[in-house]
């Protein structure tokens, strides 16, 4: 596998962030128009955490994700066509339409499932990491979760066992200041989720979750630590979600002012600006990427709309191997 040049890698990161942004905008729009059944939880505003973390991973590394997992999946390399088809509940979706938004998985590229239970993926991550190590590989496992999940018992049990067994897990908390509708101050007695790492004597770092390169830097260090057999890390990414917990959320718990303040720290815009000014990449190149992504998303929507519905008989398959 050819190693990317630094510039290529930065452009790849930019492309992924744009893809997440446009995908989630499109999903929000399509959901409001009735194309997507059920619930969706978009990650608009949180693109830098997904991309920063996953850019430090290999294709054969693993992630477990959350109910707000579209960004994680895209960042890990999932194809937006099959993701969109899955959201539409079509036969061509990643899960044949049987999982939906919260259960997208692509095990070929290490995406071991988004999860509808808050904290549900957290106890599974150490098991994946354990198997990877026992099989003699140096594959690492990233476990995504939010600030809310850090109150779940499963979070504590998972960090504990990973620490005791020194497993190659990287715990990534996307702290967007709200667990559903409840703010941080009502959820925990500490200011930072990273503080909780002390209970397990593992490194706990805090990073600006809207700065993709800062996130990437911490991810690289944590991945190295894990790959070298030195155990887990907890990375807390301070960030914010622009939309409600779910599409349709009346958002009674926060002000539009607060949202607007955070929108000024748009991770995608910040990164684009960085590429233009510090890396001297031409506007034209970035525009080309934008256009390419735009087309890919349009193609994905067309693919999803034109794909056949899942056959009814599929309701009875895949219960057992």
């Amino acid at each position, binding site marked *: 596998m050819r190693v990317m040049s630094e510039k290529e890698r930065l452009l790849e990161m930019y492309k992924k962030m744009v893809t997440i942004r446009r995908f989630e905008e499109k999903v929000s729009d399509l959901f409001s128009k009735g194309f997507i059944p059920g619930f969706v939880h978009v990650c608009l505003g949180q693109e830098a955490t997904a991309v920063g973390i996953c850019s430090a991973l290999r294709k054969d590394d*693993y992630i*477990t994700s959350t109910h707000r997992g579209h960004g994680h999946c895209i960042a890990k390399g999932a194809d937006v066509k099959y993701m969109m088809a899955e959201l539409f509940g079509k036969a061509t*979706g*990643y*899960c*044949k*339409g*049987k*999982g939906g938004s919260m*259960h997208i*998985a*692509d*095990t070929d590229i290490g995406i*071991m*499932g988004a*999860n*509808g*239970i808050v*904290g*549900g993926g*957290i*106890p*599974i*991550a*150490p*098991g*994946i*990491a*354990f*198997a*990877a190590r*026992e*099989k003699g590989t140096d594959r690492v*496992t990233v476990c995504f979760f939010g600030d809310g999940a850090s109150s779940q*018992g*499963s979070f504590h*049990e*998972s960090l*504990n*066992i990973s620490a*005791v067994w020194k497993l190659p897990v990287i715990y990534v908390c996307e702290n967007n200041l709200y667990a559903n509708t409840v703010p941080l101050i009502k959820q925990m007695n500490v200011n930072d989720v990273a503080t909780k790492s002390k209970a397990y004597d593992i490194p706990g770092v805090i990073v600006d979750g809207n700065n993709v390169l800062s996130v990437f830097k911490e991810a690289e260090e944590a991945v190295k630590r894990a790959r070298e057999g030195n155990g887990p890390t907890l990375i807390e990414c301070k960030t914010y979600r622009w939309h409600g917990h779910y599409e349709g959320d009346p958002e009674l718990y926060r002000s539009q002012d607060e949202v607007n303040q955070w929108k000024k720290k748009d991770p995608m815009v910040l990164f684009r600006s960085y590429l233009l000014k510090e890396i001297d990449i031409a506007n034209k190149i970035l525009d080309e990427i934008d256009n390419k992504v735009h087309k890919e998303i349009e193609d994905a929507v067309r693919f999803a709309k034109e794909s056949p519905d899942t056959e009814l008989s599929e309701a009875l*398959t*895949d*219960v*057992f*191997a």
Partner: protein
Amino acid sequence: MRTLTFREAIREALREEMRKDKDIYLLGEDIGVHGGAFSVTQGLLKEFGEKRVKDTPLTESAIVGTAVGAAIAGLRPVAEVMFCDFFTVCMDPIINQAAKMRYMFGGKIKVPLVIRTTFGARLSAAAQHSQSLEAWFAHIPGLKVVMPSTPYDAKGLLKSAIHDDNVVLFFEHKYLYDKKGEVPENEYTVPLGVADIKRKGKDVTIVATGYMVQVVLSAAERLSKEKIEVEIIDPRTLAPLDKDTIINSVKKTRRLIVVSEEHKNCAVTSEVSATISEEAFEFLDAPVKRINTLDVPIPFNPKLESFVLPDEEKVIKGVRETLGYKFK
């Protein structure tokens, strides 16, 4: 033929399978150095080392969660939840994750996971250590539930459970561990989903599970002296249930009693009763009778505990009632 205890038979199954397949790992509390709360895994740490016999922290969610993760990433773990009563602490990884992952992900993965546990009363272990919670799991699509009643079945079923690429919950009745039975030296398995006729008879069919199979066998011996011949069916696998064996028996005897140590309300035995009522109604000469534990938490006092549990007397009384049933 040699005899082994129920406990030894389970241990032998684990040992033989672990020797054949390096991907089998044991995870659980006190299973290593201590050899298991009920001494089932004694000697396995010595043979297979800390690498494959892991004394975990006290952490059911993480034990089972870790086992699930390991199963989807290439290993074949056998996790132990010491008492089935503790499943309450780790329901999510079993019910919402392991049972559903294959289906939700469109068939992409398999979850070759065995979870062993103990269940049942008569040890004065009181309400939180005496339950029979198999019904919770039999209810969930994506889970298989196995419950042996003899050493022969225990060894054969555990091997099959380990070979199965799905989530299998393996329920071991605490009171059976010391029970001896014939176990062949040669390699054998007992298939999942197949019931066993433990005693042939013509007058009434009794479906019994776990330790109750032994209780019903004793009751049958006593009834035989009165020329009442009981046919005893041990489902061995509660989910998926072998309905055909039960229906064929009911066609012959015309009467069915279901016996388990579960609370009567909403038990697996309720499911058997409903199924037979639905699919073998014409053959029944009496309603299906259920003999279970009373619907109260299990009391500590030994006499009270006996009072609430099903026993030989209650089974015999039930047989007489069923045989004496007349349509009004």
